[in-house]
């Protein structure tokens, strides 16, 4: 039971980080019907940023998070201005192609800036280990859980209760209508990309704390895709829940199933995709995809 609880808690933390990445993915999809192929690369850059600020520069953890988030925001603005705005009004596929190029460019940045070397920084994370009875939460998971819960709550508030959130939701539904009412599409896109980059970068820092950072961290983008498809492509709530579900399942698979494999592991990485396939068979629109409202 202790073992289960342990896996459950760390899985929850992992799942919340997946949820962060997935939210970034979903809001871009909602607004422009395009997959952001580069979401994993943004996460990886986030991990490297976290490493740079924590180890060579030796900033405190909170400051490293804030500075990285700020850089993520600038990154979002630059991407919007240089790559998204020229494609406004063009088919969504053009934007997908752009994100493929962006993924390649960010991969290059990782090699250029950090040599593509595997780095870790979990040792500088604060040494708080929460213990409930026999269950102890490692600092990296605790930090991940705290930060992601705060960010997700803030985003949900933003989408639901603010004017900007209303503009975003409205634009996601019908861009020509909102443009015709004077809501600047470029402004909404800028906000969307800033949020996507900031949450990606934050998730990168948190994940890098758990497992270290190297270019293959970008593959987490694929896992986020599984999360997003499981949750329903255009549902933010679905992304959060699916992220948590997948994180927990992945950890449980690693804890219980991997030891039974002849090779001694490997199932944890495959597990999210198996779940995704099964869900797609039964619910092609994911668990919580928005229903198209059809009056009969």
């Amino acid at each position, binding site marked *: 039971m202790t073992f289960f609880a342990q896996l459950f808690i760390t899985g929850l933390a992992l799942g919340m980080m997946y949820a962060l990445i997935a939210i970034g993915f979903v809001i871009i999809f909602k607004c422009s019907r395009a997959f952001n192929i580069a979401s994993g690369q943004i996460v990886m850059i986030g991990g490297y940023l976290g490493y740079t600020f924590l180890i060579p520069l030796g900033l405190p953890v909170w400051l490293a998070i804030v500075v990285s988030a700020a850089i993520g925001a600038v990154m979002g603005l630059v991407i919007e201005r240089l790559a998204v705005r020229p494609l406004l009004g063009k088919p969504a596929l053009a934007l997908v192609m752009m994100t493929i190029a962006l993924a390649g460019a960010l991969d290059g940045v990782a090699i250029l800036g950090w040599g593509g070397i595997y780095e870790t920084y979990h040792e500088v994370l604060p040494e708080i280990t929460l213990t409930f009875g026999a269950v102890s939460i490692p600092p990296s998971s605790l930090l991940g859980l705290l930060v992601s819960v705060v960010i997700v709550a803030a985003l949900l508030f933003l989408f639901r209760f603010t004017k900007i959130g209303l503009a975003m939701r409205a634009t996601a*539904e*019908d861009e020509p209508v909102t443009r015709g009412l004077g809501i600047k599409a470029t402004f909404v896109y800028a906000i969307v990309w800033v949020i996507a980059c900031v949450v990606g970068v934050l998730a990168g820092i948190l994940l890098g704390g758990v497992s270290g950072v190297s270019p293959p961290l970008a593959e987490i983008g694929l896992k986020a895709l599984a999360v997003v498809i499981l949750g329903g492509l255009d549902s933010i709530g679905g992304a959060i829940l699916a992220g948590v579900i997948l994180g927990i399942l992945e950890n449980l698979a690693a804890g219980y199933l991997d030891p039974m494999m002849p090779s001694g592991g490997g199932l944890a990485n495959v597990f999210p995709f198996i779940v995704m396939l099964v869900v797609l068979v039964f619910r092609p629109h994911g668990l919580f995809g928005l229903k198209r409202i059809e009056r009969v």
Partner: protein
Amino acid sequence: MPMLKVTNVEAAYLGVIRVLHGISLQVGDGQIVALIGSNGAGKTTTLKAVSGLLRTEQGNITSGEITLDGRRIDRLSPEEIARLGVSQVMEGRRVLEHLTVEENLMVGAYRRKDRAAVKRDLEMVFEYFPRIRQYRKRVSGYLSGGEQQMLVIGRALMAAPRLMLLDEPSLGLAPMAVQTIYDIVKQINQDRGLSMLIVEQNVRAALGIADYGYVMENGRIVLDGPSERLRDNEDVREFYMGISSSGARKSYREVKHYRRRKRWV
């Protein structure tokens, strides 16, 4: 000086599919102007050229000019044109389905800063359309067609426009609902002096409230005049209202045998 002046506008989609071949029309201050014509005549394209939405569909104004109060707007983005006080109600009741009725209306008021005035206008919209008041917290995708049309007109009103562009407000509505909507539109025009350009296939309804009308065919304006005169025009009566010159209903059997030549072709 007319408020909106469209002069010799030509427009094309994808740079090659030309749909407007030199359209000129004007809307005076506080006037209701109807733009009528059959499918594919270019009515909607004309409206989109004015509101700037043409460009979001890979269309372009290739020549001519559009002015609002003497200021050229044909090169502005839809957002900028909206900020100048032009509000388009698009064809097919484009409600934001997953938002509530009130949220839809607030989207209309998005760019306005004066909260008290917005609140007043929200109340005003509910006065004009009492039927949607009871549903203000409801997801708008489940409203009936007539209610959705009321909602999108209300949403356009929330932007406090000076010129409203209405694209086929009668589309797919029961005759009673069409009458209600048109009565309210006329009322809004009279109360607020709001200028309107209405594109419509329901010629009887549109000319019923309009001051002036234009008839479009194949991307050109073929006839225009005060709406009483258009209503009495034989061709308009025959081709758009289905009434023959003697005043009797047209028999569709006859139509097949003999098509009267339109005078303006």
